[in-house]
C-alpha cells in the first residue's frame, strides 16, 4: 500500500520536474498514437462508411470481420508486424523495425477495425434515417455519404477517441516492433513495463498515472466538444 502513496507523490514530482526524458517519452507516445489514429481514421471511416452504405456480396462477412478484429490482441498485431518488417520478412528492406514508424503501423492495424466497426454502426443508423429523404431528393450517392459523414462528425469523434484510447494504452504491439529502445522507441507503456520489470513499482505506477492524466485530458476535450454539439441537437 506504501507504493500507492509513493506513486502519487512520484507522479506529481515527475510532472512538476518537467524531466526531459519523461517529456520525450510522452511526446513520442502522442506522436505515434496520434499518427496511427490519423491513418486509421482515414482507412477506418472510409471502410466503415462504404460497408454502411453499399450493398455487396460479402458485406455481412466484412461486418463480422471488423467486429472480430476489434478484439485483436496487441501482441498478435505486434508479432504480425514484426514478421513483416523483420529484415528476414517481406518488408525487411525498408529497415522499419525498431523505429517509431513500425509502432505507427502496428497501432494503425490495431485500431483500424475498431474505427471501422463503430463508425459503420453510426453511419448506417444515420444513413437509414436520411435514406428515404435522400432518395426522394435524388441525392447522388457520393453526396449522400459526405452529408452523413459530416452530420455524424460529433459521434465519429467519440469513435476516434476509442481508437486513440486503445492505441495509447497498448503495450504488446509497440514492445515487439519498437523494442523499447531508450530515446528512440520508448513510449509511456513500454516505459511502464520496463520499470515494472525492474521492480520499481512506484515509478511504474507514477508513469501510469501520468498516462491516465493525458488520456483524461484528451477525453475531456472530446467530451466537451460533443456536449456542445448535443446541446445544439447536432449529435
Amino acid at each position, binding site marked *: 500500500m506504501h507504493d500507492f502513496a509513493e506513486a502519487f507523490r512520484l507522479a506529481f514530482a515527475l510532472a512538476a520536474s518537467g524531466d526531459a526524458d519523461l517529456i520525450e517519452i510522452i511526446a513520442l507516445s502522442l506522436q505515434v498514437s496520434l499518427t496511427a489514429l490519423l491513418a486509421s481514421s482515414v482507412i477506418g471511416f472510409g471502410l466503415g462508411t462504404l460497408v454502411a452504405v*453499399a*450493398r*455487396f456480396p460479402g458485406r455481412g462477412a466484412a461486418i463480422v470481420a471488423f467486429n472480430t478484429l476489434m478484439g485483436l490482441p496487441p501482441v498478435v498485431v505486434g508479432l504480425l508486424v514484426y514478421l513483416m518488417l523483420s529484415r528476414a520478412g517481406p518488408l525487411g528492406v525498408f529497415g522499419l523495425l525498431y523505429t517509431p514508424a513500425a509502432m505507427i503501423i502496428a497501432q494503425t492495424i490495431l485500431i483500424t477495425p475498431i474505427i471501422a466497426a463503430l463508425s459503420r454502426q453510426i453511419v448506417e443508423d*444515420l444513413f437509414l*434515417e*436520411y435514406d*428515404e*429523404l435522400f*432518395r*426522394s*431528393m*435524388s*441525392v*447522388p*450517392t*457520393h*453526396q449522400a455519404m459526405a*452529408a452523413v459523414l459530416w*452530420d*455524424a462528425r460529433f459521434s465519429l469523434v467519440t469513435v476516434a477517441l476509442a481508437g486513440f484510447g486503445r492505441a495509447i494504452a497498448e503495450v504488446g504491439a509497440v514492445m515487439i516492433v519498437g523494442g523499447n529502445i531508450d530515446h528512440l522507441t520508448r513510449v509511456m507503456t513500454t516505459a511502464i513495463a520496463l520499470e515494472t520489470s525492474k521492480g520499481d513499482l512506484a515509478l511504474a505506477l507514477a508513469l501510469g498515472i501520468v498516462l491516465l492524466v493525458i488520456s483524461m485530458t484528451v477525453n475531456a476535450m472530446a467530451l466537451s466538444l460533443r456536449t456542445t454539439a448535443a446541446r*445544439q*441537437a*447536432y*449529435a
Partner: protein
Amino acid sequence: MRELALRVDEIVSSDADAADRQTLPLLPLKVCGLTFRAGGRTLIDNLDLALGMHGITMMLGPNGAGKSLLLRLLHGLIAPSSGEISWNGVPLGHSVQERQALVFQKPVLLRRSVGENLDFALRLMGQSSQQRRDELLNRVGLLRLARQPARLLSGGEQQRLALARALAADPQVLLLDEPTASLDPASVQMIEGIVQDASRQGMRIVFVTHDIGQARRLADDVVFMHRGRVAEHAPSKDFFQSPASEAARDFLAGRIVL
C-alpha cells in the same frame, strides 16, 4: 458498386435535361392496375387512377386505406408488385422523381441549422444563393430562426422547414403525406396557405389527409381511398355534396369505416 455507377450516369444525363425540367410537363398521370403486396397482404389492390393537369388533389380516406403507400408508389420510393404508373407517358424513374418533391408526415431534417438544411437542397439544385434561401425561409416564417439547429424547432416549425426545402427544388408536383397531422392550428393554417399559394402559381399538389375539414378547405378534386383502391374520384363540390360510394358517405358522416 454497379448500382452506384449507374446512378452517377443518370445524374449526369439528367443534368443535361435540367433545362427541360419545367418545359416537359409531368401530367397527366395515369395509373393502371397498380398492386402492391407485402408480407402476404395486398395493400394496394389493382388500383386505377388518372390525375389532370392542374389543381390540388386531396387523397382522403380512413387510416390504413393505402393513401401514404400510394403516394410513395407515385413518387417511386417503392416499387409496385405489378401495374403501371406513367407520368405524361414517362414511366417512373429518376427524371420523374426529381421533378417532384415529397413532404413526409414526420419531417426528416439534417443535423444542421435551419439555413443549412435549405442550403443542402439548393446546392443539390445547383442554385445555392443567400437570397433564394432567405426568400424561402421568409415564405414559411422561419427567417429569424435561420441559425437555429433544425432539430430544436417545434413540430410545426420543422414541418414548415421541410415544406420550404421541398419548394426549394421548385418541383412541378408537390406530394404531401399528412404534413399537418398532430400540428398546432397556426402551423396548419400557415402550411395550408403556402400550399394554396404554390398551387395558384401552377404547382400541381397531391395532398394526403384523413382530415375531412382540411380536404374541404383545399381540394379541387378528391380521391377517396378505401381498402387499397380508389373508391371514388370526383371534383370537390360533387364529392362533398353527394358522395357516390357508401364508404365515402360513412366516412363523411363520421361513422367508423372498416
